[in-house]
């Protein structure tokens, strides 16, 4: 049987959204994936899916129809006083939009995986602004690239080659030779090993390092101590010189800034640094958004509710206060009485203390694959894979929306269809308003 090559597929794994992937399809099945990194290739190739919807009875899962699983989910959500709808990263914006409708209907909290990764970045940006640019500008213009608290060699494997380092750009025709790459991290990561310069910093000292860089930039190097967070003052002065003298600089900020001491304050401080650098040259910041369309979840939720994540509809209108209304805030306070995990895996990525509460409440999982969340779930609804079996819109880490492609057909319902059906049934149960 002839094999067909589908080209320019958009990889649905990480925030790079590489849009040059080639997928080989034989007899309606994917037989090979070219150009993707191992992360993307494994996701597109796929493997054992959850076969059918399931409901847990006496501790054991029983396979049921979509109708039964949707009915059970609707009942759980319609009855809940404080439901949480969490995830929304590995699916398309069209499904996220349906999720907001459902959240509003049942007065739920709706939160995304950003709350455990770049939520702090989002809050920092709200406080201080977003000095961003597109990855295309980085590719064509950047001569100074700083990876701070991120390790793209492992988390975004094609990032350097496609957008930021070895790639040849319009004004950087010699690729790597025309750029200088710094890595600032607490350990010598794989990215540190391929950078021009690795600066080791002690865990939790990023805020102070940004303050020191700003102080030096403002001409007050004399008041900076000899070392800041383990970084020698001379090195900081060198960094400021490199930053001031480049033509186009970019800082890629990672979870080394968002999941550590000072959280969003780190972001506010680095954005201030970028702002001040713009008095000397062109400087920008791009958060290394991890999951496929987590950035899109922020955009979709923001244009529908005014807020990008951690939104509480319990008052009948959108209320936003991360620290109070993010998933782990409400789980740790034992406040939630039902939860839906969709296109995100809290079982693997939330602290144990939050899982302890998730184990006690009805948990609905909507996901193509079994994972640690399945172990805690009471209802499991398998769905089609966004970006492989469903097309739609996803946002790249730099905020560029990209139309993703459908590569193969599937018998699974899409996330959007499942949400629509749950929403319809919830409306009926709640009295047809």
């Amino acid at each position, binding site marked *: 049987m002839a094999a067909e090559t589908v080209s320019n597929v958009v990889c649905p794994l990480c925030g790079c959204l590489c849009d040059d992937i080639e997928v080989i399809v034989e007899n309606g099945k994917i037989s090979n994936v070219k150009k993707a990194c191992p992360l993307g290739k494994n996701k597109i190739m796929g493997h054992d899916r959850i076969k059918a919807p399931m409901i847990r009875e006496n501790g054991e899962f029983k396979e049921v129809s979509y109708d039964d699983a949707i009915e059970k989910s609707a009942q759980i959500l319609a009855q809940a006083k404080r439901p949480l709808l969490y995830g929304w990263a590995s699916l398309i914006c069209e499904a996220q939009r349906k999720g907001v409708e459902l959240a509003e209907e049942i007065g739920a909290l709706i939160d995304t995986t950003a709350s455990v990764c770049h939520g702090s970045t989002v809050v920092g940006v709200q406080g201080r602004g977003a000095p961003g640019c597109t990855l295309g500008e980085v590719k064509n213009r950047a001569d100074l690239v700083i990876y701070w608290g991120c390790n793209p060699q492992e988390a975004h494997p094609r990032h350097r080659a496609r957008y930021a380092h070895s790639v040849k750009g319009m004004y950087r025709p010699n690729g790597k030779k025309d750029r200088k790459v710094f890595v600032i991290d607490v350990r010598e990561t794989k990215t540190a090993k391929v950078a021009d310069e690795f600066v080791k910093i002690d865990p939790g000292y990023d805020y102070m390092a940004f303050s020191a860089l700003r102080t030096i930039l403002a001409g007050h190097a004399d008041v900076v101590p000899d070392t800041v967070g383990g970084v020698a003052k001379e090195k900081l002065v060198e960094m400021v010189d490199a930053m001031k003298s480049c033509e186009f600089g970019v800082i890629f900020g990672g979870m080394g800034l968002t999941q*550590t001491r000072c*959280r969003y304050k780190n972001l506010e401080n680095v954005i201030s640094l970028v702002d001040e650098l713009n008095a000397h040259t062109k400087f920008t910041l791009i958060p290394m958004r991890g999951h496929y369309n987590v950035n899109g979840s922020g955009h979709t939720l923001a244009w529908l509710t005014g807020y990008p994540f951690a939104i509480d509809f319990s008052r009948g209108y959108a209320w936003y206060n991360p620290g109070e209304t993010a998933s782990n805030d409400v789980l740790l306070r034992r406040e939630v009485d039902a939860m839906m995990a969709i296109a995100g895996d809290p079982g*693997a990525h939330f602290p144990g203390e939050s899982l302890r509460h998730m184990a006690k409440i009805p948990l609905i999982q909507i996901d193509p694959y079994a994972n640690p969340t399945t172990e805690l779930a009471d209802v499991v609804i398998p769905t089609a894979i966004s970006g492989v079996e469903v097309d739609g819109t996803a946002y790249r880490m730099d905020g560029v929306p990209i139309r993703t492609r459908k590569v193969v057909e599937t018998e699974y319902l899409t996330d959007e269809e499942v949400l629509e059906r749950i929403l319809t049934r919830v409306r009926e149960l709640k009295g047809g308003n």
Partner: protein
Amino acid sequence: MNEVILITGRTIAQGSNLENKMSDAYIDAAARCEMNENLLTRIGASVGDAVKVSTRFGEVVVNAEKDDGLPDGHIFIPMGPWANAIVDPDTGGVGTPAFKGVPANIEKTDEAVLSVKDLIARYREG
């Protein structure tokens, strides 16, 4: 007892098994604790030995691995359910738990590394 600082984060192997978490490959990828040669020697462990990592928030058994890119006194466990058994859940006023920079203790152990199923089952109990 050896006091260390715990960092968690992504790795290629962890990311490659993101949608394959019930597999043995995921245990290999995420139930591991990387540290430098000095620290391995200090706790009397070799690569592949089970080590117990404990924090104020819990304890977990994972396999010791070597990575000399880590400074002395720092350990790295890939993000996932093993790491999350011991990270600091406090959301820092912004909703995000402290997945990095958590004070921990590490020691060699005879206890076994738990599978995803057994690890998660612990949360059902209490």
